[in-house]
């Protein structure tokens, strides 16, 4: 070759612009590619779930600030932000990424490496408590984690306890907003919803395996002795279960009874939404049974007093407007409002005085948030109403509802309708 210009213009500038044009610009000139909508799951005024196309959530206020901190700290070098069309990723992290979800992402945060898990849909996967303890020291909750500690997200409050500072609050808000453009997708995510498990044999081997699982996944919060006093529990507003007490909230058995193995399996698999208890459905079934068998060994009476017969949960009917209205009446008659408030915001007159069996203050659920600890399907609410939550002020209403000859499903759908999305 004899000419500098040929090389500089054709090879240098020519091919460069050709490629940028074809690969970077042309595709996004088509309207059908530039989708601005996201498939969103919403709750209807009848309490059911519905999918529709909606605008993605913009970044503003504290979430926007959190995004800047996410960039500043280089979180995106280890956490990717798109889910590929692979079954394993969808099960582990949630539904496939959509084009429209990224409408306001500048700069984009796709990421190229997963030293940590993908964060596209992390919002709501763990409660705030979990993240707070995890930012302070990831290895407190996840002993095998290699994430750095982010102690500069904390300050000391007047009692000398570590609480999030403004940066910490912002990054938490950003993390918890990830995936929320898709609304209540988690409520219909098949891998995180369980009706009932079967049961397993509590063999010596299973308990031994369970202990290994327990020490790696559970001990940070529930404590090595199973007393709910793990190191991380100091950061929690809602304290972890004390397995030595034999008191379990989420059961299909009558009030006061021990839970079925299947109840524990459901809680371990689906997690407890809004709290630090994650969903463990990604673990193999055997690991989950093993850890349940180990957890049961903290309370010897599991062997001597079998749980009572579970209640029967029928197939839920389709809701109607009349049913939801009737539910409102049942809500008033059963005095649900004393604790949960007349609009279901968890602000009833007794709300601030409630204590659990361990004398910890406990807040009634705010139904308008649509986060239900034991699951958000109608059957889950039915179960909680009929069996109550042991160890808390929430009693079983099975007798009163039967005495009044009311339809429990009416109450269930009324409660669900309280978290209806605005049209």
């Amino acid at each position, binding site marked *: 070759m004899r000419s500098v210009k040929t090389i500089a213009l054709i090879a240098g500038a020519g091919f*460069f612009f050709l490629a940028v044009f074809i*690969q970077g610009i042309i595709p996004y000139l088509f309207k059908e590619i530039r989708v601005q909508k996201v498939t969103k799951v919403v709750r209807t005024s009848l309490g059911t779930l519905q999918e529709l196309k909606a605008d993605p959530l913009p970044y503003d206020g504290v979430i926007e600030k959190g995004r800047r901190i996410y960039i500043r700290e280089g979180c995106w070098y280890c956490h990717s932000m798109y889910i590929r069309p692979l079954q394993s990723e969808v099960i582990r992290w949630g539904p496939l990424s959509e084009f429209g979800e990224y409408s306001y992402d500048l*700069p984009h945060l796709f990421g190229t490496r997963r030293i940590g898990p993908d964060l596209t849909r992390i919002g709501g996967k763990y409660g705030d408590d979990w993240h707070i303890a995890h930012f302070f020291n990831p290895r407190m909750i996840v002993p095998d984690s290699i994430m750095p500690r982010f102690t500069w997200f904390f300050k000391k409050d007047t009692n000398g306890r570590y609480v999030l500072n403004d940066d910490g609050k912002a990054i938490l808000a950003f993390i918890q907003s990830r995936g929320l453009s898709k609304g209540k997708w988690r409520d219909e995510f098949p891998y995180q919803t369980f009706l009932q498990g079967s049961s397993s044999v509590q063999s010596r081997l299973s308990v031994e395996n369970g202990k290994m699982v327990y020490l790696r996944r559970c001990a940070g919060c529930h404590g090595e002795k199973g007393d709910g006093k793990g190191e991380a529990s100091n950061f929690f507003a809602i304290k972890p279960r004390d397995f030595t007490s034999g008191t379990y909230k989420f059961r299909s058995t009558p009030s006061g009874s021990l839970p079925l193995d299947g109840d524990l399996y459901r809680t371990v698999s689906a997690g407890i939404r809004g709290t630090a208890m994650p969903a463990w459905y990604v673990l193999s079934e055997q690991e989950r049974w093993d850890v349940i068998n180990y957890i049961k060994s903290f309370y010897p009476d599991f062997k001597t007093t079998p749980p009572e017969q579970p209640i029967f949960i029928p197939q839920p009917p389709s809701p109607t407007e009349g049913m939801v209205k009737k539910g409102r009446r049942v809500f008033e008659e059963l005095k649900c409002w004393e604790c949960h408030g007349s609009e279901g915001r968890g602000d009833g007159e007794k709300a601030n005085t409630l204590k659990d069996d361990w004398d910890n203050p406990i807040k009634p659920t705010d139904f308008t948030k649509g986060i239900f600890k034991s699951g958000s399907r109608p059957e889950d609410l039915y179960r909680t109403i009929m069996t109550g939550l042991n160890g808390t002020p929430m009693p079983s209403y099975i007798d009163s509802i039967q005495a009044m000859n009311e339809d429990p499903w009416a109450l269930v759908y009324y409660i669900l309708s309280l978290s209806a999305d605005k049209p």
Partner: protein
Amino acid sequence: MNEGLVNTSIVKGWFRWGFFWAIVAPLIGIILSLKFNFPDFLSNEYLHFGRLRPVHVNGVILGLFSSLFFGLLYYMVPKLTGVRIHREEWSGYAIWIWNLSLVAGSISLLLGYNKGLEVAEFPNPVPAGFILSLLIITYQVLVTISKRKEEKIYVSLWYIIAALVWTGLNLTFGNLILPYAGSGVSNAALHGLFIHYVVGLWVTPAGLSVIYFFLPASARAPLYSHKISLLGFWSLAFFYPFVGIHHYLLSPIPDWTETIAIVTSMMLIIPVWAVVTNFFGTLKGNWSKFQTDVTVKLLIFGAVMYFIGSTQGSFEALRGLQKPTHFTDFVIAHAHATVFGGYIVFVLGACYYVWKKINGDGSYNERLAQWSTWMIMSGITGMVIVLSIQGLVQGTELITGAEFIDSLVTMKPYWLLRTITGITMDIGIALVAINLLRYGKKA
């Protein structure tokens, strides 16, 4: 010897900074690597993984590789054109602006000023320094070449011209347009292009210009085939600009642009194999040099690594292999095999040659040079093998549905091995710098 053409103080000025980065940037790599097994090691607000990683990547590409390459550039261009560099007196500015920008940029990353785009992280106005410095160099080089005494332009100069033009465009594009262009998905697509232009349109052509010059020079043999080098150059120039989207495959980026990126990634086998054929052909009947001469040894070893790493990179773009390997250390293996094992090894090998030419005999310790060469070669080979295996292992584990933390636990022993291989090769690089600086002074 017409050493009179080369202004050695420019070459040495770049080399000194290059040696500085040769010690600093890999050391940061070791610290990062240790954090995988000891996450609390040296971890605080300014030195935790997220802040330190870009300092390593930018330090290696813009510091270690680029400074040494620029030093070599100011040796090659006068030699190939037969005239002195145009406006030599400007070079001092280029050296200091470039390297001080990198120092300032690295410090601002540690302080948290990060633009959020991989390899384009430096906050404004730091990138302006790189662009300005590059403009000076490009101007000097293009004018010098146009004043050349030889009518034909040697292949090294094609690569140099293209690399300078591409990178001038790319730095401008990456810093003036990319942070503000498009939204979400289209921003990612543009960024994918940018990332690959840094390695494909800067490190690759710059590195190839070095081996095209120094392999025939150090082996004292003519280039095997000028026709093959034409094929290598034009296929690289045409295919490379299209491949960038392969950084974000199986994402919401439209499938057909992903497919173009995959096809062109595979087509890159043509320039890679053509170039490597040329190097091995050049050494035909001359292999004794490989045993005795550190420059030839490093250049040929680098060519093998370049061949392995680039071929791996092409196949990695195929969707089938992409599914398990993307997001894992398999990609990191590819990055280290090519950028370090290939291009940085090329420039290190060439440094030995140039240092001896400009400082005379005894400008480095032969025994130490052999040691450093073996440490570099064994270190990077071990690292590429370990990282490739662990990438496949973790990728397969995750694709078959493992819980994420379980896959991390599997990785931990591999990470420890990776650190050991990294330390080995880093000592090797540091030995190059120490050897040349120490003995060069005496000579």
